[in-house]
């Protein structure tokens, strides 16, 4: 039984969620990974070093410069023959492509698994993580996305896989990449950070994020996150959003500031090791899941915290 993992990476290298997908695949048996893109030699080399990976398939073509769903799915379907399981992390790319692959193979995808029971049986959160479903698949191939926060990432070193060039059908049924805007940040990525400082509607505006949260995040080497309310109000970019429809995170420490603790927000952070809530409303639901709470005005607490760190 061999699994194929579609590897997520960017200019900075292989993403941590992709290493978590490799770790999930390793529970099933032998692991091959697929690196797709243009000029990917360095990424393929890095993938060959991932612990537990025995073979790297590298598809290096201009048509793959951007991860468009149509050519990516066509490529993976062409390679699917020898694999019992095809996995990727539940990243934007994984969520976009994997169901397309599943439909082309007449399989029902198994989205966002948080545990592997056996080759056919997996656990996945439903209802924003308010319930955990154990599901058994009868499909010949299992098409899976992996909730990265639930699996310790495979080590970046230790492996010595062979690298094999592959190519596939670049059939594109009509999508064209035009442009992208990727926020540049010196901070760790949300899904990889050990500490996250997150702000909500209570922050009132974007300047307050910069003025009050950024210095604390800098001192703690933390990533900055946000609630949907803070994103929708334009305080911070959309990729800061933590929750059911944003990023799912499980850092060692999550500090929720001016966030009420709606089900949909909690869905994305309740597996954090330690949760701190700072809120002026002592009845805010966030306190029901917080290990440590400070009831008070964030505009006095945050400057104090910054000074004391």
């Amino acid at each position, binding site marked *: 039984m061999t699994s194929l993992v579609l590897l997520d990476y960017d200019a900075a290298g292989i993403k941590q969620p992709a290493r978590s997908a490799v770790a999930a695949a390793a529970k099933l048996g032998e692991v091959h990974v697929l690196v797709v893109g243009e000029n990917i030699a360095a990424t393929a080399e890095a993938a060959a070093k991932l612990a537990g990976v025995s073979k790297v398939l590298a598809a290096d073509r201009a048509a793959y410069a951007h991860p468009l*769903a*149509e050519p990516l*799915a066509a490529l993976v379907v062409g390679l699917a023959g020898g694999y019992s399981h095809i996995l990727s992390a539940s990243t*934007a*790319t994984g*969520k*976009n*492509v994997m*169901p*397309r692959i*599943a*439909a*082309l193979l007449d*399989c*029902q*995808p198994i*989205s*966002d698994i948080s545990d592997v029971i056996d080759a056919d049986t997996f656990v996945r*959160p*439903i*209802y*924003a993580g*308010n*319930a*955990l*479903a*154990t*599901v*058994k*698949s*009868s499909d010949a191939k299992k098409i899976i996305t992996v909730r990265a926060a639930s699996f310790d990432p495979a080590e970046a070193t230790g492996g010595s896989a062979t690298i094999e060039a592959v190519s596939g059908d670049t059939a594109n*049924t*009509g*999508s*064209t*990449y*035009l*442009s*992208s805007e*990727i926020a540049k940040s010196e901070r760790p990525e949300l899904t990889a950070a050990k*500490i996250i400082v997150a702000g909500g509607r209570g922050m009132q505006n974007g300047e307050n994020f910069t003025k009050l949260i950024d210095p604390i995040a800098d001192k703690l080497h933390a990533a900055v996150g946000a609630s949907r309310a803070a994103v*929708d109000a334009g305080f911070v*970019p*959309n*990729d800061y959003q933590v929750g*059911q*429809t944003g990023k799912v995170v499980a850092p060692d*420490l999550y500090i929720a500031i001016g966030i009420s603790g709606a*089900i949909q927000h909690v869905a994305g952070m309740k597996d954090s*090791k*330690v949760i701190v809530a700072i809120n002026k409303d002592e009845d805010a639901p966030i306190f029901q*899941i*917080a*290990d*440590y*709470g*400070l*009831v008070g005005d964030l505009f006095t607490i945050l400057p104090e*915290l910054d000074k*004391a760190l």
Partner: protein
Amino acid sequence: MKLLVPVKRVVDYNVKVRVKPDGSAVETAGVKMSMNPFDEIAVEEAVRLKEKGIATEIIAVSAGVAACQETIRTALAMGADRGILVETDAALEPLSVAKILKALVQKEAIDLVVMGKQAIDDDMNATGQMLAALLGWPQGTFASKVEIADGKATIIREIDGGNETIALALPTVITADLRLNEPRYASLPNIMKARKKTIDTLTPADLGVDPAPRLTTVKVSEPPARKAGVKLADVAALLDKLRNEAKVI
């Protein structure tokens, strides 16, 4: 241009669901049901496309039990023109729903499908991508902006780290993210008008679809509960706990 908007009936997003004591499923009896929030956004986008003169007809479709009629009525009150209920008591997976939708797209000669990116009950985030695959159409998922002109759709998508703009040849499937628009409330006159709009009823078999599931639920359980911790007096007490008790900073 003819639009299809699939709308799912789900447990209302404000309800804190409970797992049934026998661990077979989540309790849905006596629980408030609503249209999936992402589908409201999809309906809103379709109605705006009609108001701009781009869409000529909007068909709202829901697959599931008879009560999905209510969900379709909500879409009609928001501005969809007619509805189709694909009635079944079977639990439907995205693969089955995508097959049902594919058959309807072909039957109704649909040019554009606008739907939610994710149903908030099963949290699959799969049906739109699967429908596009089955039709051999391009897909525009997680859209936060949609523009239709010159036979193509240009969309801004929410991706990790930011946004991406892509162009899609029509026909296509677009799935709505939260920030695509702010759905309207149906006005009373429109709710009254919606009562007169037609809803046709079909079955999966009428569309040649066997909805037998590929995933069986072995069990459903409550996630490990978190306990409320302690409220602390001040910043100094917090830092002391984080440093010396939790040891996370």
